[in-house]
C-alpha cells in the first residue's frame, strides 16, 4: 500500500535549514492499522503530509498503491487524493460555511458523483456515524466529538483504500476519543488501511503496528503488544 525509501523533507528559511525527515524508509501493507509516534517536532505530521500527497518530498521515493508518486504533478496528486485517500485531522478541518451534509458531500462533488447518488451515500455514512439528525447543522453548532465524527464520515464517504489520521483525538475528551478510535478500528476491520499519527500511547494501542520517529528518522518499529 505504502512504500517509502530514503524519503526526505527539508524546511528552509533565509538563514536556517531544518531537516524534518531524514532518509525515512518504511512499508505499510494493505489492511494494516499503523500508528506513527514520536515527540513534538519529530516529523510525524510532515511524514503524514507527504504520504497524503499534501506536500512534496525533497528526496527519496514514495510509492502509493503500487505507483511512484514523488514526481507527480499537482494535478496527478489531486487525482490520487480524491480517489484513494481519506484524511482525518486533529483540528477536524471542517469548512465552517458548509453544513454537515455539505462537508461530507465534498469529496463526492470532486469525484463528479451525481446529486442523487451523493445524497444516498452521504446519508448512508451519516447514519452509520449516528449523525443523520445533525445533517443540516453547521460545524460550530456541534461538539468536538461530533465534529470529528463528521470529519471521519467525510474521510470515508468515497470509500478510500487508505485513511490518514493526524492526531484524530488531540482535541477531544476521552469518551469522544474512544468513539473515534472505535470508528477507525471498524473501518480497518472492514478493509481500509489506516495510518494514524499520534503522540498518545493510549491511542497507539488501537493500531496493530507502531513506527516511532525521532528527529526525522525512524528509530523503532514494533507490533502491538511489544510496547
Amino acid at each position, binding site marked *: 500500500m505504502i512504500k517509502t525509501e530514503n524519503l526526505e523533507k527539508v524546511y528552509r528559511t533565509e538563514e536556517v535549514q531544518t531537516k524534518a525527515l531524514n532518509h525515512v524508509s518504511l512499508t505499510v501493507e494493505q489492511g494494516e492499522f499503523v500508528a506513527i509516534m514520536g515527540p513534538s517536532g519529530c516529523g510525524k505530521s510532515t511524514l503524514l*503530509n507527504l504520504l497524503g500527497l499534501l506536500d512534496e518530498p525533497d528526496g527519496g521515493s514514495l510509492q502509493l498503491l503500487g505507483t511512484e508518486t514523488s514526481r507527480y504533478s499537482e494535478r496527478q496528486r489531486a487525482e490520487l*487524493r480524491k480517489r484513494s485517500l481519506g484524511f482525518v485531522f486533529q483540528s477536524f478541518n471542517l469548512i465552517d460555511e458548509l453544513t454537515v451534509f455539505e462537508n461530507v458531500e465534498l469529496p463526492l462533488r470532486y469525484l463528479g458523483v451525481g446529486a442523487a447518488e451523493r445524497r444516498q451515500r452521504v446519508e448512508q455514512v451519516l447514519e452509520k456515524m449516528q449523525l443523520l439528525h445533525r445533517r443540516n447543522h453547521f460545524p460550530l453548532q456541534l461538539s468536538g466529538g461530533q465534529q470529528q465524527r463528521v470529519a471521519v464520515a*467525510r474521510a470515508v464517504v468515497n470509500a478510500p483504500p487508505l485513511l490518514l489520521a493526524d492526531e484524530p483525538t488531540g482535541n477531544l475528551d476521552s469518551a469522544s476519543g474512544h468513539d473515534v478510535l472505535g470508528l477507525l478500528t471498524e473501518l480497518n476491520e472492514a478493509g481500509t488501511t489506516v495510518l494514524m499519527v499520534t503522540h498518545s500511547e493510549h491511542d497507539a494501542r488501537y493500531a496493530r503496528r507502531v513506527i516511532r520517529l525521532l528527529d526525522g528518522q525512524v528509530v523503532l518499529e514494533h507490533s502491538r503488544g511489544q510496547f
Partner: protein
Amino acid sequence: MLPYPLLLIYRNFKRFKSTFFINLIGLSTGLACALLIYLWISDERSFDRYHTLDGRLYQVLENRRTAAGIETQTGTVPLLAEALRREMPEIELVATTTPVPFFPKFTLAAGGLHLSAVAKYADPAFFQLFSYPLLVGTPATVLRDKHAIVLSAALATKLFNSPQNSLGKAVQWQMGTDSTQTSLVAGVFARVPRNSSEQFDFVLPFASFKDRMQMSETIKWDDDGPFTTYLALKEGADPAQFQAKLAGLLKTKSTQAQGRTLFVRPFAAGYLHGTYENGVVTGGRIAYVRLLTLIAGLILVIASINFMNLFTAKASRRVKEVGIRKALGASRAALIVQYLTESVVMALLALVVAVGLVQLVLPQFSALTGKPLALRWEWPLVAAGLALALGTGLLAGSYPAFYLSGFQPAAVLKGKLPTRAADVWTRQGLVVLQFTLSVLFIVAVVVVNAQLAFVQRQPLGYDKAHVLRFDTGGKAARQQAAFLSEVKKLPGVVQASSVLGGFLGGRYVAEMSWRGKRLAVGTMLVNYDLVETMGLHLVAGRSFAPQYRADSAAILVNQALVAGLGMLDPVGQRLDGARIVGVVRDFHYESLHEKIKPLLLQLDPQINTVLVKLQPHAEQATLARLQQLYAAYNPGFTLDYTFLDADYQAQYVAERRVAVLARYFAGLAILISALGLLGLAAFTAERRRKEIGIRKALGASELSIVWLLTSSLTWLVVVAIGLALPLSYLLMERWLAGFAYRVEWQWWYFAAAGLGALLIAWLTVSVQAWRAARRNPVLSLRAE
C-alpha cells in the same frame, strides 16, 4: 435551495458582512459608471446609422494641397452629383445638397401663419438615399418639381393642421433678404431622428436654388463649392476600386485641379471621425468616445482592485478552506473555477444594484450630457451589461483565484497564511495603482476647471456682454437698412449691425496674395457699425461708414493678416483689389482652441443676421421694444434670438461636460479607492491585533498606535502621488494642447491633488486605526 456558488456567497456574506458591502458598493458603482458611459457611447455610435442604405452610403470630400499642407473639405462643386451619375456606373444614387449651417433660418408663411424654420436644398435622389420616411409623397418623385417643397410632419401640422392636409397646398418662403417664393407641398417626412447629425425642417429642390443663383448648367471643375454630395454605391460595388477611380477624376477634368483629390468616406463615419489633418482623418468626437471608454475601464479596474485586495486580505481566513478542499481532492483548476464563479456571481449581484443606480441617476446624467438616454432592455444592452459584469468578475476574481489556489495544502491546513513577499508587493501595488488613478482624476478635474476659468477670463478682443443675435426675415429682411436704423434708435440700444452667419465660428478661407506673398485669409461679411457694436479695437485707419461710397470695395483687416503678410503700413494697401481702410486688433472670432487667423472684414449691408448691443440693466425693457418693432415689420413672426454670451459658452459645451463628468468620475474613483483602503486598514488592524495589544501593554500611547497603522498605508499613497503627478502632467498637457490659448501649469494643481489624496487616505485609515488603538489590550492578548 440556492445553487451551490450562491450558497457559498450567501454564507460568506453572513460571515464577512462589511467586506461584502464594501465589495458590493465598489463593484456596483464601478459597473453603474461603465453602464452610463456605455449608454452614452452607444448613443454616439448610433448617429446617422439608421439609414437603410447605411453601409453603401458615402459622402464625397476633397483634399486640397495648399502651402500649409493638405486641407480636407466637405464642400464640393454644385453639379458634382450629375457628373458622377453620368460617369460612374458603380453609383446607384447620388445627390448634391446644401449643408444646413449654410443658411440662417428661412421664414415660411401659409394661411396667415409665419414661422422660421431650417431649410435644406437637395437633389431629387435625397429621400431615396436617406431614410426619412415620407408620410405623404413618394421618395423618388417628391423633389422632382422645381416648385415642390417637402415639410417635416411637425411643420406641416403647424401650417396645415395635419400632414395629409398639406399636400398640394401653397407655402410662401423667404431666404434671407431675398424676395418671397411660393412652392407647393409635394411631400411630408416624419421627423428627423434625434441621432441625426443634421436637423432640418423642410427640403427644397436643389434645381430651384440653381435657378435662383443663376448657376451654370454645365459643371465647372475648377469651381469651389460649399455643397455636400452624397452617394450610394450599387450592391456588390467595391468601395476601394471606386475610391481609386474617384481619386483620379479631377485630374482628368482640369489642368488646374492637380493638387485636388476627391474621395468618399462612409456617411455615418463623419459624425465621429470628422477631423482631418493634412489629408488624414485624425479624430473628431471619437476622441470623447475613447476618453470615456478609458475612464469606464479605469473605474472598473479600481473597483476590481478593491475586490482583489479585500479578497486576498481576508484570505488568511480562507486558506484553511483551500487546504481542506485540496486534501479532499480538489484540483487547482476546480478551486480556480470556484473562486472565479464566486467573483462573477458577486459581479452579477453588483450589476443588479448598478442597474438600480443607473435608473436613479439617469435623468441627471441625461441632462448633463444633453442626450435623452434611457435603459431599454434590448439585447445589445443586456449583452453589454452581462459582458461588463462577467469581465469585471473575471478580472476581479483572477488574482484571488490564482493566488489562493496556488498554496500547498500542507502549508495552509493549519490556517496560517504563509507570507510571501510577492503577495505583499502585489497587494500594495494594487493600492498604489488605485490611488495613482485617483490622483490622476483629481489633477484632471483641477486642470479642466482651471482651463474653463481661463476661457472666461481671457480678453477676447471684443465685448460679448449684452449682445443679442437674431435672423431677420420677411419685411425686416427686405428693408434691412431701414429696420436696422430703427433698431438703433430704440431706447436701451447702444448700437446694432449685422454679420453673415453670426459673429462666432469659422470663416470661409481663401488664399490671397500681396507682393508675391500668399496667405490663407478668412472673410467676415459685415454691416456698418460692426466694430462699434462689438467693441472691436481699431489700431489703425477707420471703420466702415456710409459717407465713404467706395467702402463697398474696402476691407478691414486684423493684425494677424498684417503680420502674416509682413505689411508695414497696411492702411491704403490693396489686397486682391480691395483697399484696406483700417486694422482691428486681433479678436477671438473662433473658440480658444483655434489660433487667431488672418481675417478680413468686408462690407455687405444686405446681411440679415443682426447683432444688437443693449445697455446693461435694461435688457428686458429693450427686448420688449425690439419685439414690438419686429412685429410691426413682420406681423405674425416671432423674434427668435440668442445672446452672444450664450453662443460663446456654447463653444465650450464639450469641455464643460468633460469638467462635470471628470468631477463625478474623480469622486467615484476616490470613493471606491477609499473603500478599498478602509477594508485593507481593517484587515491590517485585525492582523496586528496581538502586536497592538503587546505594544499597549508595554506603554504605547493610542496616538503612536494610530501612527503605526497609518504610516505604512500613507507610504503607499505617497508613492501613488509620485507616480500620478508626472503621468497626469503628460495626459493633461495633451488635453491642453487642443487649445491655442491655455492656462500655464501651476505648482498648486499638483499640491492640491496630492494633499487631497493624502487627506482622504488618512481620514479613511485613521477611523480604523483609532478603533484598533482604543481596544482593550487584555482582550487582544487573551484572544491569542
